[in-house]
């Protein structure tokens, strides 16, 4: 057998990989981008630097069958660039590496992964090892030994190590009373490695442990319950000697009731002062009561109501005052025309009140809002269109001059056409914002126009364009500005099967401020090649 034929069988490049094909599949993408930037005017107001930058990216995915019912999945993402906006380092950077050995019951993972135990215990991106083991359909165990990231010499931040275990048990699997009955317990410890970077005056190492139990109970009927109770033990170098450990609790309980017509949910949330999350950062102390009510009058009319009441400054809080928030929100979704369900109207109102123990020094205030939006589709001509209006009033009780009124009016329309037997897509989105403060009768008038489109010149060649215009006529003198952003793009599909593209793009960004001191121009020319395989 010729070597190339054999290689093609072994390294199956492309295709779905399904069925009785080879036991190994390599897929991924390669992209190369070259960007030329030209900036003039007040260049300090631009993110861009003059000159030419490049970005090379490679993404490789490997799937391979192993012994038994195990398989291996791997992923590597490499990037090299000299553009400091993308990465400050110019060498080849392995931004992501992940290797999984798995079967339907077990998973062993090395590299970058998302550690996900429960909202209070662990939910963050980690780098290290992770295992999920399910010895039976009712049991599941997770183990994590990782770090949140490398030590940072620039900010003198220590490497933070994470170790955790989680055990979940499903009860009453064949019950006629419960459709789901899961209970879980988890423990996570984060600890700084104080030898990982040279210590600075501001550097302190911490150790934090979170113990938590969570679960979901769903009855075969309308009732369900989610809950989590957590306790954290935290200490750092600044704690008094003997180093005290701060201990605190966090609780969330969420019962719900749902039928075809009703959906009612209640959330109780408590985070005591000095409760520290998985990352070792203090969570804001708070007690919260939230009630959600959904009612469906018919297939075409439904209403959603939310009452959310919460306050902080619990006993032991480091905050100087208590702030109480009370929010109500009501929205209706309606399809008023029986024969035209694409016509959807959504009116809504909300009221949010913030009160404080210390009104003179706080942002005590009230926000009132009302809005309506509708969307429709005219099937015969393929036209999507809609409009929205929103009014927002903010009253600042401590500082009356900060009170303001906001009106926002917006329209949108998009349509597919046939021009010379080819598809032309156009979309328009004009908006007007009117804003004034309570102390000024003049309005800031902002007009925005967004337009974009695509024309399929041939089966392999596409032309795209985008234009946005923001014109601000401000109430304050000498504060008007106009920003114009335009781009056009020619996309040539080199290979349909492997979705290989070569794209050339031109971008123009022009910002003119009334006093002339802030104005700048940006011109960019971009060439990009990418291929998926």
């Amino acid at each position, binding site marked *: 057998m010729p070597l190339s034929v054999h290689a093609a069988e072994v390294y199956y490049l492309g295709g779905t990989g399904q069925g009785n094909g080879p*036991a190994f599949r390599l897929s991924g993408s390669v992209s190369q981008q070259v960007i030329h930037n030209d900036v003039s005017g007040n260049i300090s107001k631009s993110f861009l630097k003059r000159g030419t930058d490049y970005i090379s990216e490679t993404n490789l995915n490997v799937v391979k069958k192993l012994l038994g019912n195990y398989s291996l999945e791997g992923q590597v993402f490499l990037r090299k660039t000299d553009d400091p906006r993308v990465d400050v380092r110019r060498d080849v950077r392995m931004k992501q590496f992940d290797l999984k050995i798995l079967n339907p019951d077990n998973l062993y993972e090395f590299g970058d992964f998302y550690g996900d135990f429960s909202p209070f215990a662990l939910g963050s991106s980690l780098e290290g090892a992770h295992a999920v083991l399910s010895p039976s359909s009712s049991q599941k165990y997770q183990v994590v030994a990782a770090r949140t990231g490398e030590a940072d010499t620039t900010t003198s931040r220590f490497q933070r190590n994470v170790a955790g275990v989680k055990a979940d048990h499903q009860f009453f699997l064949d019950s006629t009373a419960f459709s789901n009955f899961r209970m879980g317990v988890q423990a996570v410890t984060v600890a700084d490695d104080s030898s990982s970077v040279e210590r600075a005056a501001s550097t302190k190492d911490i150790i934090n442990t979170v113990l938590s139990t969570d679960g979901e109970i769903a009855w075969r009927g309308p009732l369900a319950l989610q809950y989590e109770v957590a306790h954290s033990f935290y200490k750092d170098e600044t704690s008094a000697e003997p180093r005290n450990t701060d201990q605190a609790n966090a609780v969330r309980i969420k019962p719900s009731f749902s039928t075809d017509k009703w959906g009612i949910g209640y959330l109780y949330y408590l985070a005591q002062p000095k409760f520290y999350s998985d990352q070792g950062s203090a969570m804001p102390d708070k007690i919260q009561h939230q009630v959600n009510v959904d009612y469906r009058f018919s297939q075409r009319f439904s209403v959603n109501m939310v009452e959310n009441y919460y306050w902080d400054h619990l006993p032991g809080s480091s905050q100087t005052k208590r702030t109480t928030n009370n929010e109500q929100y009501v929205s209706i979704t309606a399809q008023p025309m029986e024969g035209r369900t694409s016509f959807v109207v959504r009116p809504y109102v909300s009221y949010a009140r913030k009160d404080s123990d210390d009104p003179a020094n706080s942002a005590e205030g009230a926000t009132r809002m009302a809005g309506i*939006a509708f969307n429709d589709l005219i099937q015969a001509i393929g036209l999507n269109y809609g409009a929205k209006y929103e009014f927002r009033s903010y009253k600042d009780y401590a500082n009356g001059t900060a009170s303001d009124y906001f009106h*926002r009016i917006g329209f949108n329309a998009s349509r597919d056409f046939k021009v010379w037997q080819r598809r032309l897509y156009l979309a328009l989105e004009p908006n007007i914002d009117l804003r004034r403060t309570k102390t000024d009768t003049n309005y800031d008038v902002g007009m925005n126009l967004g337009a974009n489109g695509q024309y399929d010149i041939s089966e392999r060649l596409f032309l795209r364009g985008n234009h946005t215009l923001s014109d601000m006529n401000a109430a304050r003198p000498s504060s008007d500005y106009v920003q114009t952003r335009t781009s056009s793009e020619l996309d040539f599909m080199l290979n349909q099967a492997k979705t290989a593209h070569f794209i050339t793009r031109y971008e123009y960004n022009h910002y003119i401020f009334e006093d002339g001191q802030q104005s700048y121009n940006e011109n960019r020319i971009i060439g990009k090649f990418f291929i998926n395989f």
Partner: protein
Amino acid sequence: MRQIIIVSLFFSCMVMPAMAETQAGQTAVIVKPMDDREQAEKLLVGIFDIYRNYSRDTFSALVSENFAPARAEFIDTAEKDYAAGAVLELNFFIDQVLPAGKKLAIQFKWEKKTKPGNLDHPILRKGFAQFMFENVKGKWLLGQVIGNSPF
């Protein structure tokens, strides 16, 4: 150097057993399409577009009821941030995309340029954030923000 070694080992481990197994005539595994990075880009473009043309109705529809730590405060903060000044520019550069079941964690750098109503000059801000999206009944909703929020 460490990266080169890891990548070399990665492919050595894969390739050698793969050849042996294919010669032994084993069958292929079912392959899940690896399009998480494309999905991540779509999600970020979507939420930033909605934010640029903010209305409470459309923005809050993208935030999960299970948002941690507090949904209402997050929406209020985004709303105040938007009302404080016009958003002139919002760019992002994705570093990592980490799927975990029905969740997708995206780590990215961002740049944001705004023109506050009470200032004469644009404000340029940069940050690094992690957004976690969760798939709720087929729709991707924002479930957590860690790091410097662009909102």
